[in-house]
C-alpha cells in the first residue's frame, strides 16, 4: 500500500464566536492513500467542509486547528501561515473543486485571464504557454478550446463546473478536493461531471477527496471513504468495507435512509432528531441522541476507534461496534436478496 | 388639538408680556368679566339688542395671514408682525393661522382677489419711482381692485379716492397737486386700507480702521442709496487705498442701468456713476447735480433746467444736446417696451435751448417727471452711445459705461463685481477713493466677511447683523442706521369680511405692538408709525396734517375690543368673536370687480 498523501490525526477544529466556540471537528482521523479517491460523507453541518477547508488553509478567519496533526505528504501543515499555504500547498499540490461552481469563477475575468493569473503566481509559464495548457484541459473536460476566453456568465452551470475541473488540474496537483462538486446540477449533468472526475483517476496520477452528502456518489466513485456525523468521524474504510460491513449505527442507517431507484418499494430508514450543537467539550458520541442502540457508555467519553474484523483500515468510532452486526441485523440484511427492477447493470 | 395648543402658547405669551406692558397687565385683570359688559354696552349703542348674548352674528372664522416668504430680512419682519398679533388673538377672540407664499404667488393671489387669506402682511418695495406718491396711489385705485389680475395691495375700493388719484396725476402746478394728493391721502388714511407698523430700517456698517466715519441722513446708507457715502466724500483711513463693499445678489446683471432687472440696483448708477440733473439725497430731498436749478411753467407742461459745468467720464462736457438725446431716447425705448423702468411721458420733447439750457416739454402736465423719473435716470453722452449702436439694438450693444457721476466704472464683471474710480468732473460730489463692490448672496456671509476684514463697508445688513457686528467689533465698526421711505404694515383684504370692516382694521391697528416689533426686529433702531399712510416720515410727501392717527406706539387691546363692540361685534361665552348680527360679509361677490357706483 502506498504512503498516505494526506493524514488527519486526531484533529480538532474550532470556530471562535462571541459566545462559546463552535467545535466543528473533533478528534478526526483518517488517511488518504496516494492515488486513492476518498469520499467523505455526512449531513450538512457535520464538519466535512471544515475538514476540506483546513487542508488548504481555507478556514474562515475565526476558524483554527486547535489540536492534532494534518500531514500532507508527511509534512505538518495545520499551523501553516497564509503565505506558507500559498508557497507549499495551494494549487500546486492541492487544488479545489468548490461547492458552488456558479459563484466560484470571477464574473469579471475571462477564464483565460484567470488561468494566466494562476500560472503567473505559481509557475514560470509564459502567457501563450498557459493558454495552450488551458486549451488542453478544456479538451479534457469536454469544453471546446475556442471558448477559453469567454466570460463565466457565458457558460451554463455544467460548463462552469467543467471549467472549474480544468482549473483544478491546471497545475497538476497531487490532491484534488472536490467539495459537493455536483449538488447544484441536475442528474444528467451530475452524471457527466462525475464521469470526468472519475476519468482523471486513470489519466492523471491524482488523489481525490470527494466531499458530499450523497453516499451513492461515494460508493460509485471512491476507493475508500469516511462517514461523518456531528463533527466526529463515525466510520472509515474502503467503500466495500463500509457498504458490506458497516459497524457504526449512523453509517448503517444512512445507507438505508438513502433512496435507491432500484427498489422503489423499500421502506426508507429514518434517523430521528438532529445533530447536537457542538459548543462544549465533545466527550461523547454525537450520534448517541439519535441512535436506536445508544447506551450510557455512548455518553461517557468520545467513542474510541474500533477496528472492524481486525482490519485497521476499517474503523468504526462506536463503543458497540462489536455487537452491531447483531443489533442492527434487520437493517443489515438488505436489498441484496430482493432484485433490482432496473434492466441491465448488476 | 392644534388650536388648543395655539391657545395655550398664546396665553403663556400674554402673561409674559403682561409683566412688561402696562396695557396688557390691565387687560389681564379684567378679561373675562370685562368681556360681558363691554359686549352688552356695545350692543346698547349699536343695533338695539344686537349683541346681547345669543344675539350674535356669524362667528369670525379662523383668520389667515398671508406673507411673502422669499423677501429675506423683510420676511422676518412679516413673521414677527403676525406672531405679534397672534399673541393677543385669544383676547380678541380670534384664531390666526399663517400662509407663507412666494412674492410672485402672493401678488398673483391678491391681484385675483383670491379670498383664502384675510390679511396680507406684505410690503411696498422702496423703489425710486415711489419717492413720488403717484405710483402707490394708483395701485390703490378702485379699478385695480377685485378679481382682474391687477394688483391692489388690499383690494381697496373707494371711488372718491380713486377720482382724486386720477386728477393728481395730471396736475402741473406743484402746490395744487400737493393739495389734491393731500385730500386723497386723507381719505386713504381715514379708510385705513394699510395698517402701518414700523419704518423699514436700513443698516450698514463701516470699518473705521479702513474708512472714515460718515454723516448719514435719515435714509442711512444702503445698496439702493449710496448718497451718504458720496456726500461725505468716501474717504479712507491712511493705509487703505480702496473701499471694499458688498452688493446684494443679482445687483450686477446689466451694466446698462435702464435695463436692470429690478429697480433696487438703479440707485447704484444714479448716485455713483450716472448722475442725473438732480437727485434725492440721503435725506430724501431733491438736490441739484448736473443742473444748477430748474423751474416749472405755471401750467406744468414745461420744465427748464440750467446745466452746470460738468464732464462725462470720457472728458466730454455735459451739454443740453446730451440731455435732449438721453431723455427722448429713454422715453422712446420705454414705450417701445425695451427699457422697463424709464417711465418718461410718451410725447416728451426736450429742447436744447442753448448748450447749458434744456427744456422738457409735454403736451399735458407730467408732474412725476421732476419728482420721479428725472431724479432716477442719469444723463448719457450722446456720441459714444450712438457709436456703440444703442439706437440699432437698444438692449444688446457694447455699453461704453460712460456717465457724469462722481465715479466711473473701471471694471465690470457681470454678476460678480464692479470697480469704480473717482471722477473729478462732477459738479456736486467730490470723492477720493476707488470703490470695489462684490456680489454677496447672504447677509451672514457679508457679516462674516466684514468681521474678517474682507469688506470695509457692509450694506443692506439686517438690524440683527448690525447688532452682532457692533458687539463683535466695537468702535472699529460704525453702524449706520436709517429708514427707507416706505414703512412696513399689514394689508387687510377689503373685498370681504372681516377686512372689509373699518372697525376690524382699526382693531388690528390697536392690537399690534409697534414698540415690541421695533424692539424685536430693529433693536429699537426703527420708528413706530401710528398715522395711516404708505409713506414714511422720511418721505418727501409725508404730511401729517392730512393723516389720521390709527394706532398707538404700544398695544391697546381694550381699544381694539372697544372698536369692535362699538360696531356691534360681540363675543360668545367662550369668548369667540362674532360679527354683528346679519352683517353682510362680502364687499362684492367673489371673482368680480367692485362697481364704482357703490364705493
Amino acid at each position, binding site marked *: 500500500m502506498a504512503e498516505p498523501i494526506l493524514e488527519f490525526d486526531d484533529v480538532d477544529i474550532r470556530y471562535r464566536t462571541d459566545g462559546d466556540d463552535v467545535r466543528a471537528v473533533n478528534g478526526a482521523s483518517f488517511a488518504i492513500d496516494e492515488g486513492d479517491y476518498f469520499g467523505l460523507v455526512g449531513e450538512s453541518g457535520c464538519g466535512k467542509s471544515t475538514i476540506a477547508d483546513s487542508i*488548504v488553509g*481555507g478556514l474562515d478567519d475565526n476558524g483554527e486547528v486547535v489540536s492534532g496533526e494534518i500531514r500532507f505528504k508527511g509534512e505538518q501543515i495545520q499551523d501553516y501561515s497564509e503565505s506558507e*499555504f*500559498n508557497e507549499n*500547498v*495551494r*494549487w500546486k499540490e492541492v487544488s*479545489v473543486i*468548490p*461547492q*458552488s461552481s456558479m*459563484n*466560484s*469563477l*470571477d*464574473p*469579471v475575468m475571462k477564464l483565460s485571464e484567470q488561468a494566466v*493569473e494562476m500560472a503567473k*503566481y*505559481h509557475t514560470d509559464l509564459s502567457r501563450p504557454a498557459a493558454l495552450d495548457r488551458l486549451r488542453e484541459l478544456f479538451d479534457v473536460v469536454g469544453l471546446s478550446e475556442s471558448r477559453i476566453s469567454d*466570460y463565466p456568465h457565458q457558460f451554463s452551470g455544467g460548463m462552469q463546473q467543467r471549467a472549474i475541473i480544468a482549473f483544478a488540474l491546471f497545475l497538476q496537483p497531487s490532491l484534488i478536493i472536490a467539495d459537493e462538486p455536483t449538488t447544484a446540477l441536475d442528474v444528467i449533468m451530475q452524471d457527466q461531471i462525475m464521469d470526468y472526475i472519475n476519468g482523471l483517476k486513470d489519466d492523471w496520477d491524482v488523489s481525490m477527496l470527494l466531499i458530499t452528502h450523497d453516499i451513492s456518489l461515494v460508493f460509485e466513485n471512491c476507493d475508500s471513504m469516511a462517514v461523518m456525523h456531528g463533527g466526529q468521524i463515525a466510520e472509515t474504510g474502503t467503500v466495500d468495507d463500509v457498504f458490506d460491513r458497516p459497524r457504526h449505527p449512523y453509517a448503517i442507517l444512512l445507507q438505508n435512509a438513502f433512496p435507491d431507484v432500484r427498489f422503489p418499494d423499500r421502506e426508507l430508514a429514518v434517523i430521528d432528531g438532529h445533530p447536537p450543537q457542538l459548543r462544549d467539550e465533545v466527550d461523547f458520541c454525537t450520534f448517541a441522541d439519535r441512535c436506536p442502540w445508544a447506551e450510557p457508555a455512548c455518553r461517557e467519553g468520545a467513542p474510541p476507534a474500533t477496528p472492524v474484523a481486525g482490519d485497521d483500515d476499517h474503523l468504526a468510532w462506536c463503543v458497540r461496534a462489536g455487537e452491531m452486526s447483531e443489533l442492527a441485523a434487520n437493517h443489515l440484511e438488505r436489498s441484496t436478496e430482493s432484485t433490482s427492477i432496473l434492466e441491465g447493470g448488476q | 388639538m392644534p388650536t388648543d395648543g395655539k391657545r395655550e402658547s398664546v396665553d403663556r405669551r400674554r402673561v409674559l408680556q403682561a409683566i412688561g406692558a402696562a396695557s396688557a397687565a390691565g387687560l389681564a385683570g379684567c378679561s373675562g368679566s370685562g368681556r360681558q359688559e363691554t359686549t352688552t354696552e356695545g350692543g346698547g349703542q349699536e343695533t338695539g339688542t344686537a349683541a346681547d348674548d345669543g344675539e350674535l352674528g356669524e362667528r369670525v372664522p379662523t383668520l389667515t395671514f398671508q406673507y411673502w416668504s*422669499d423677501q429675506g430680512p423683510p420676511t422676518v419682519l412679516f413673521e414677527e408682525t403676525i406672531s405679534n398679533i397672534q399673541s393677543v388673538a385669544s383676547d380678541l377672540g380670534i384664531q390666526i393661522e399663517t400662509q407663507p407664499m*412666494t*412674492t*410672485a*404667488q*402672493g*401678488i*398673483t*393671489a391678491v391681484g385675483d382677489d383670491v379670498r383664502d387669506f384675510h390679511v396680507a402682511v406684505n410690503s*411696498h418695495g422702496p*423703489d425710486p*419711482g415711489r419717492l413720488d406718491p403717484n*405710483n402707490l396711489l394708483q*395701485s390703490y385705485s378702485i379699478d*385695480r381692485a377685485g378679481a382682474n389680475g391687477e394688483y391692489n395691495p388690499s383690494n381697496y375700493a373707494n371711488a372718491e379716492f380713486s377720482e382724486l388719484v386720477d386728477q393728481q396725476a395730471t396736475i402741473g402746478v406743484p402746490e395744487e397737486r400737493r393739495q389734491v394728493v393731500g385730500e386723497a391721502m386723507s381719505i386713504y388714511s381715514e379708510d385705513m386700507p394699510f395698517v402701518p407698523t414700523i419704518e423699514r430700517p436700513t443698516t450698514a456698517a463701516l470699518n473705521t480702521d479702513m474708512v472714515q466715519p460718515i454723516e448719514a441722513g435719515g435714509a442711512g446708507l444702503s445698496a439702493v442709496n449710496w448718497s451718504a457715502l458720496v456726500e461725505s466724500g468716501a474717504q479712507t483711513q491712511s493705509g487703505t487705498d480702496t473701499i*471694499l463693499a458688498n452688493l446684494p*445678489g443679482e445687483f450686477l*446683471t*446689466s451694466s446698462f442701468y435702464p435695463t436692470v*432687472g*429690478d429697480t433696487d440696483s438703479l440707485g447704484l448708477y444714479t448716485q455713483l456713476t450716472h448722475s442725473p440733473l438732480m437727485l434725492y439725497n440721503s435725506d430724501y430731498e431733491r438736490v441739484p447735480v448736473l443742473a444748477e436749478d430748474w423751474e416749472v411753467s405755471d401750467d406744468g407742461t414745461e420744465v427748464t433746467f440750467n446745466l452746470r459745468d460738468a464732464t462725462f467720464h470720457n472728458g466730454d462736457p455735459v451739454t443740453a444736446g446730451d440731455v435732449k438725446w438721453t431723455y427722448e431716447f429713454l422715453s422712446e425705448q420705454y414705450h417701445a*417696451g425695451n427699457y*422697463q*423702468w424709464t*417711465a418718461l411721458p410718451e410725447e416728451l420733447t426736450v429742447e436744447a435751448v442753448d448748450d447749458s439750457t434744456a427744456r422738457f416739454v409735454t403736451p399735458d402736465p407730467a408732474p412725476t417727471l421732476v419728482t420721479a423719473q428725472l431724479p432716477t435716470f442719469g444723463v448719457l453722452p450722446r456720441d459714444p452711445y450712438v457709436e456703440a449702436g444703442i439706437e440699432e439694438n437698444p438692449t444688446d450693444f457694447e455699453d461704453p459705461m460712460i456717465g457724469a457721476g462722481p465715479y466711473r466704472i473701471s*471694471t465690470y464683471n*457681470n*454678476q*460678480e*463685481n464692479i470697480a469704480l474710480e473717482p471722477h473729478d468732473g462732477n459738479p456736486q460730489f467730490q470723492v477720493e477713493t476707488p470703490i*470695489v463692490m462684490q456680489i*454677496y*448672496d*447672504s447677509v451672514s*456671509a457679508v457679516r462674516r*466677511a466684514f*468681521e*474678517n476684514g*474682507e469688506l470695509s463697508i457692509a450694506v443692506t445688513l439686517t438690524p440683527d447683523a448690525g447688532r452682532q457686528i457692533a458687539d463683535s467689533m466695537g468702535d472699529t465698526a460704525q453702524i449706520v442706521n436709517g429708514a427707507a421711505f416706505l414703512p412696513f404694515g399689514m394689508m387687510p383684504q377689503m373685498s370681504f369680511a372681516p377686512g372689509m370692516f373699518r372697525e376690524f382694521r382699526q382693531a388690528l391697528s390697536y392690537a399690534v405692538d409697534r414698540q415690541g416689533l421695533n424692539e424685536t426686529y430693529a433693536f429699537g433702531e426703527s420708528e413706530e408709525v401710528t398715522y395711516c399712510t404708505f409713506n414714511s416720515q422720511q418721505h418727501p410727501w409725508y404730511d401729517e396734517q392730512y393723516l389720521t392717527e390709527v394706532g398707538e406706539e404700544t398695544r391697546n387691546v381694550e381699544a381694539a375690543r372697544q372698536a369692535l363692540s362699538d360696531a356691534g361685534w360681540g363675543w360668545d361665552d367662550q369668548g369667540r368673536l362674532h360679527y354683528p348680527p346679519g352683517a353682510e360679509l362680502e364687499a362684492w361677490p367673489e371673482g368680480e370687480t367692485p362697481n364704482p357706483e357703490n364705493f
Partner: protein
Amino acid sequence: MSRLRYFARRTAVTAVLIFLVASALFLFFRLMPGDYTSLLIQQGMDPQQIEALRRKWGLAAPLHVQYVRYIVNLLTADVGQSFRYGEPVWDLVAPRILNSFVLVAPAITATYIIGGLFGAIMGRRRGGYLEKSGIITVSAFHSIPDFFLGIILIAVFSSTLGIFPTSGMLSTPTSIMIQDQPYWRRFLLPEFWKHYALPFATVMLYFMQYPALIMRNSVVEVSDQEFLHYHRLKGLPESTLLRKIIRHASLPVVTLYPISLAASISGLVLIEIVFNWPGIGSLLVSSVLARDFPVIQFVFLVAAVWVILGNFLVDLLYGVLDPRVSVSGSDGE
C-alpha cells in the same frame, strides 16, 4: 449581442428621457402660480407696461403655444433670454455653471476616491475600531446641514485661526485684476486655493458618507463571495485579492458618482451661498422665486441631461468593469 445595437438603444432611450424631462420642466414651472411680471408689479411697474412685457415674452400666449415654441427653440439650440436680466440665458448661466463645476466636480471626485478607499479599508477591518469610529464620523458629518458645516469651518479656520478667507473665489481686487486673463490663470494663484480650501473641505466632509459607507458595505459583501474564497484557495497573494475586492466593490460607488456630480450643475446652493461662491446656486434660487422661466428651465435641463448622460456613461463603464452588464442589454435577464 452587438455593442452597436446596445448603444443605439441606450441612445434612443436617453433622447426620449431628455425630451420628457424638458417637457416636465416646462409644465412644472408654468403650473406654479405667478410669473415674473408679478415681481415687477411689486416694484411699481404699471399694468400697461406689464402687459407689453408679457406679450414680448410670450407669457400671454396659451400654454400649448408656449410649449411648442419652447420645444422648437430647444431643438434649434435657442435657450432664450432671461426675463429678469434681458440677457441671453447662456451668457448669464454659463460662467456660474463653470464656477460651480470648478468647485464641486473636483470635490465630489476627490470625495469618491478618498471616501471609496476609506470605505474599502473599513470594509476590510470589519468589526474593528476603525470601522466603528469611521462609520460614526462620516455619518455625523452628513447629519450636519451642509451650510452649517461650512459655517463651522469658517468659524474655526477663518474667524478664529484666520488661515482662510471666509468668502468668494478670489479676493475682489484680484478677481478684478485678472478679469481679462483666461479663466485657468486663477488656478496658478495661491490665493485661489486659499479661497478654495474651505468650500472644498465642506463638500468633501458632507458627501464622504455615500462613497465611504457604500464602499464599506459592498466590500464586506464582496469579501464573502465564493469566487474570492476560490481565488484565495488558488493561492493568490493578499494584495491581489484586495485589488480584486476593490474592483468588484467599486461598482455601486461608480453608479452613484455621476449623480452626485450632477450636483455641480444645479449647484450646492447653500454651500455656495455660505462661502459666497459665485456659482449657479444662488442664481437658480432667485430665478425660481422670480419665475424667470428661461433660466430655470435651462439650468434644470442641463442638470437633468447631466444626470442622464452620467448614467449612460456609467452603463458603458459598467460594460467594461462587469462584462455581464453589456450583455444584459440584449436579453431581459
